[in-house]
């Protein structure tokens, strides 16, 4: 139970980083994002619609990402999100923050075990 809560906290903390990172390469739509997170984490991380979209909208409001409806012939229109310049800066900051955090955690916990 405690472990579950810990995982949830981690997930919450890392959500921004994950989404922004996935959007760095190219614009993607919501369903694609959820599928990629699930696939790349081997099913460890899952964002269902009820938690994914509120995040996307909040990031959009903060100006980190920008959604746009795209229509292709013969298909339903979809909303694609791309990273903005502000989002790119935020991603860089979060990545360096994350790296130093992981390093620090590893140093502390690895130190004990070593």
């Amino acid at each position, binding site marked *: 139970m405690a472990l*579950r*809560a810990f995982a*949830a906290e981690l*997930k*919450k903390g890392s*959500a921004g980083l994950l989404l922004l990172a996935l959007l760095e390469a190219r614009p993607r739509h*919501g*369903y694609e994002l*959820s599928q990629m997170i699930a696939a790349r984490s081997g099913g460890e991380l899952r964002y*269902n*619609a*009820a*938690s994914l*979209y*509120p*995040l996307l*909208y*909040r990031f959009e409001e903060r100006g980190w990402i920008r*959604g746009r409806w795209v229509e292709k012939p*013969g*298909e*339903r229109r*979809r*909303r694609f999100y791309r990273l903005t310049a502000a989002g790119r800066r935020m991603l860089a900051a979060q990545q360096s923050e994350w790296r130093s955090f992981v390093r620090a955690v590893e140093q502390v916990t690895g130190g004990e075990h070593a």
Partner: protein
Amino acid sequence: MPEPPLQGPAGRAPDAEPRLQDWLAAARAHLAGAALPPARRQTAEEELAQHLEACYQAQRAAGAAEAEARAAALAELSAPPGGPSRQAWRPGPPLLRDIRDALRSLRHAPGFTLAAVLCLGLAIGANAAIFALADVLLLRPLPVPNPGQLAQVEIADHHGGGGRAPYGAVNYALYQHIAAAQEAFTDLAAWAGSAGGPLDAATTGKARLVQQIWVTGNFFSVLGVQAAAGRLLAPADDQPGCGAPGVVLSYSYWRRALDGVPIAGTFITLNRHALPILGVTPKGFRGVDVGGSFDVALPLCAEPLLDGDGAWLHAPYAWLLDPIGRLRPGWDLERASAQLAAISPAMFAATVPSDYGPRARSHYLKRRLEVFSAARGVSSLGGRYASPLWMLFALAAVVLLIAAANLANLLLSRAGARRREMAVRLALGAAQAALARSALAESAALAVGGVLVGVAIAAAGTPALAAALQAGAQTPWFEFSLDWRFLALLAAWATAICLLAGLAPALAAAKTAPAEALRSGGRSLAGGSGLRRGLVVAQVALAAALLAAGLLFAGSLHRLAAVQPGFREDHVLVLDADLSPLHLAPEARLAYQQRLLSRLQRIPAVRAATMVRVMPVAGIGVDGVIRIAPSAGHAGVTRATPWFNQISPGFFQTFGAKLLAGRNFLDSDTTASPPVAIVTQAFARQYLGGASPIGRWFQIENMAGKPGPAYRIVGLAADEKYEALRAPFVPIVFLDAFQNRHLDPDFEAAVYSTMDLATLEHEVVTAVDGVAPQLTVQFTPFRQKIEGGLRSSLLLAWLGAAFAVLALLLAAIGIYGVLAYRVTLRRREIGVRMAMGATRRQAAGVVVGTGIALGLVLAFAGARAVRGLLFWITPADPWVLCAVAVGLAMIGGAAAWVPARRAARLPPMEALRED
């Protein structure tokens, strides 16, 4: 992403596969509680729906069963694991959220919302306005302390089978005897209206009439009324021979005529007598005559002085006083009646008029006194309007019923259409309570909207109604006020209907298994549609009944207006002047009136002028017993009771009445020549077997039954209306006013002129001023006198017609609402028909035809139902029934046509795809 195919995999019902609409509904339900700006909400709904559909399709592609795939997709919307997180939608406060959601969902259905709110508003407005009227005229107690103790004494009509006599008032002598001998009342007061003629507050020229009440000195203390300023009358003010006593003003007259100036030391001139003003009655006190009002209240003792030669106080035939008092503690109406019945023989024996003959005397002595409640006042006006008012009240109640059926129908239709949405929300785990709450919020929003519209309609309609009723009245009778308690009752009614009809389907939907509801696509509504059809049937039937009633009222008024009254109604001005201030001897009155009349005839614009004792169709009449002298070879009666009028030679020319045979009155007919008379056709028909009346003789019996001087009939006039337009032609005897030695001090005349009446009035005033500068004249266009008598019929006809229109409007809204919904359900069928080559016109015909057939059947049923509702008009007028059927069919057709056309305009492919 391609559309889901219309046909699912083999062996599966085509609607088992969820469609994008279902996912949209699920998304909408999921987002219902979220605080989102509208644009964002739209984006989120669409994105979420696509997401769910994509999940579902992925699961299906991976080989999952339909139900499993559906569950997996819906799981996407469940709360994130680990309890509520920052990432969830931000919810608004629950109550606000419900209201906001309700408003939003109503905004998405403008047709439904408009129909429901209008329907409620019209019904509430109409009922509140009618209630305001009925309240004032029939229901409201007198604005005095403990009105329940008030009772009035009347002469009971035991000859007419008991109960209230049409003329139950007493004369002054009788009142004095009763007041002394009665034991039932703490004190017995009495009052009389302006029956002896209104008083004149002008000093010269055109009369300024005021409505007075004559009261006993204890009148105000018996009622318990306190002065708003100064003091009211006391017993000391009402002593025999009181000379120029004090006057009490009504609050409204004080404000209107005196601008509410302080009354101490001021005087008012009434019939040339300056009288000190003692005080003012409280605001809202209008005497005890319901719907009546007064300007000044005077002690009875002053009547002989002010009415001069026309004084009635001590006249034995002046049955003008209404005794009123407070019952002693422990006395009820029955006991009081018993006591008064016990003293009646002595009362009547002591007051029998001396000139009564034996027959009149024994009739008089058999009379009994009876006590009636006066808690709501003495209702002369209420009596006149009571039956039309109750009728209008019934009509308004029917409108209320129609509105209820209509509303229930609209709400049920809407609930049916939203069944799928409910099911989806339930499937998503929404609590039943939440569903009920949102249904309640929507119903409450509708009820509030309807009540607001209703109050607006009532607030505008009530003064309009009051103005229409009081048009042409000398003194405004009363002001209307909206009764907030009744409005609250109507609001409660509206809310109850909304909540019941809104909540019931929500609860029923909550009971249905979600999967089943989803699968049925909200289309299997067999149970609900039966109820709805029943409601439309009820509504159209009621509307037909109302329409029939409205047409019958309008029809009877039309017939009344088409009546040939036998005289001209326009271009005649009626004059009324009171000669009593001149104190002429009875013998001098005739010469004076002749002089006045000839002066009027000399006005260049006046084509004819006449004296006339009984103004036609003004609601008054004088009858008397005559003995007709038998004539050789002619059958007929020898004793009859015709109606009388006294006229001068100009009468027939002034009123455009026809003289068929014989001669008119001549200047040579004087008090010195033998008395002559003119009679109408009805006289000849009824009394003389149709033989010519000319040359026949009759005598008029006096009260004692003794025949008076013999009159010779010299002319035959065409029939004309006498007391009222709606009454049949009665036998009339015209006597020559110029042969009457004992003319009343009232000068009543009519002039005929094509000049505009206002200018004519001025000319007449100038002319009268030349003859008698001290005289004041009252003017009434004859047309206005006629319409005054028709007012209650007019009111009923207009309001009946208004209610019929309202019922039609509501019926149209109802039919439209239900058909629009049915068309939505049958879009696919209509689409298929059109895809198969049916023209749009034909497709519309399916729906319109159904509407017309329904309307026709129900109009007939409705017309039969109205028979019980109309208790004083014959309902089986075939033209009315036809008009009702055709009218409702047209309304139904029109109401069906709009949605049908909308369906038929839909491109076939879209209709097919949508379903």
